[in-house]
């Protein structure tokens, strides 16, 4: 898996799925349409400022709340390169992996990265470089099984492969 390189956007602890993707848009099922509502209620200017390839850097328990997959879908289809958080809520973590959205758990991350820093994340190698601050961090990579799922583009391609459909 190639390292992800982009600009960091800092988020607090406990960013819940209602904040990431409001419940009122849950009937939207077209993945391409979901980024239009990403962070709409609480961070309405995020979509104007951030660019595909950028990295979300968050505190603990990112993605807590409902099981709505659109929270991970909207981030993935916006083109965010990776979400790095101190910890993730369980269902968001699963959805991200199953959709092939790269994620990394890096305790204490926000002490080492400020908004706008250029960072590079090597998911498989467990290394994060902050080019702006000139810092390097290491972290425990996800288990191999999960990295493989992300690498294959998520559970749909992985299931197709398993069933001999590709």
């Amino acid at each position, binding site marked *: 898996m190639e390292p992800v390189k982009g600009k960091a956007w800092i988020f607090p602890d*406990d960013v819940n799925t209602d904040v990431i993707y409001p419940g009122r848009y849950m009937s939207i099922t077209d993945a391409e349409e979901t980024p239009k509502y990403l962070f709409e209620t609480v961070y309405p200017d995020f979509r104007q400022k951030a660019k595909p390839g950028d990295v979300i850097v968050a505190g603990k328990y990112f993605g*807590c709340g409902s099981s709505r997959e659109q929270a991970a879908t909207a981030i993935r289809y916006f083109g965010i390169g990776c979400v790095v958080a101190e910890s993730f*809520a369980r269902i968001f973590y699963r959805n991200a992996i199953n959709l092939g959205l790269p994620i990394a758990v890096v305790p204490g991350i926000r002490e080492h990265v400020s908004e706008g820093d250029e960072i590079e994340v090597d998911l498989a190698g467990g290394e994060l470089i902050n080019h702006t601050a000139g810092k390097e961090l290491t972290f425990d990579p996800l288990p191999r099984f999960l990295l493989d799922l992300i690498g294959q583009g998520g559970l749909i391609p992985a299931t197709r492969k398993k069933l001999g459909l590709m």
Partner: protein
Amino acid sequence: MGMTRSSLTGSSLTGSPLTLAEKILAKKAGKDKISAGEIVQAKVDVAMSHENGRMVKLSFERIGVEKVWAPEKIVIIFDHRVPAESERTAIGQKELREFVKAQGIKNFYDINVGVCHQVLVEEGFSRPGILLVGTDSHTTTAGALGAFATGIGATEMAAVWATGELWLRVPETLKIVVNGKLPRGVYAKDVILNIIGRIGADGADYKAIEYSGDTISSMSIASRMVISNLSMEAGAKVAFVIPDSITEDYVKTRAKGPYEMISPDPYATYLSEHTFDVSDLEPQLACPHQVDNVKPVTEVEGTKINQAVIGSCTNGRLEDLQEAARVLKGRKVHPEVRLLVVPASWKIFKEALSEGIIETLVDAGAVLVNAGCGPCLGAHQGCLAPGEVAVTSTNRNFQGRMGSAEAFLYLASPATVAASAIEGKLADPRKYLEA
């Protein structure tokens, strides 16, 4: 209410005693040995989706399999936006109705049955010892009957529809023991809010919880469902009440399929153990905007409210409506408050109707909403305006959850919601519940 934390270690003398989560997953993964932290491929017994089954369907079609793996194990229940609040929802529901017909999925419940977690229990899909997954976070509710029940995303549900299997990380388990007789005006909702306040909104993230103790074992199935439902708000992957005779009495007459009364092994290894004594507990409220921002009613009473909601998969069952009616009987909802009552199912509605509860609530000034998720997720049927305050028996008080991001939500028991509706401000229900 005290709490102790201590680490219990597994007995090395008896081999490897297993928690309830480990026991069920070992069985479903076909393994003799299993331990927390490992990832297994497990076979699913029940796969539930609501309207988001449409997203599952889209992912399922992308996988490219023609038929679902076992139509009798799939359950589809419409509850989130019933009746359809928009053309978009109507189209989604229509597509899904056609899909269940084409796939031969008989366990389909249209807009006239109830909230998925309630229907799963009422209709006998939630059973001890099974692996139940649902595309809704509050699927943990079925843990009240001893099921390994957990919420998953739409894409992974599509993989379940295609293969009947799912990767699951075997969770570590928190053992939570609750003892003591609940005081007047204090309910399962107050117990679980207090626990979440103490262990935190991520206190059980990716973990299983096993609940036991005399408070839990004397609770009805309905009350146990409150505990397992709201455990999700502490991050729990699964929240078991260890199945007992109350569970079996409930399940044996309605079980749709086999079940097994599985208990954890003595000396299983727990991540931590927490013991609570609830005999002096006061009514509790989760204050804006976090479910773990929990305070006793005596600290927050007097805050003016605009809306009061009784219902949802958390607290929309018969005993909840009965308690609300006890508080509201012969009284009136404050003229500046909108009280919405949303039974968790039509079965419950009919029982409440025949007991005269509905009449009591409507006479008091309540607006009755059809069984479903209603205003809980802010899609329709009771959204709030900026600056408004609601007290609600539902499960989340996140910013923007019930409409405006500038509204404020307090979570409480149905009795506390009813008392607050009378006074037009957050109120202590105990004064309306004299013995």
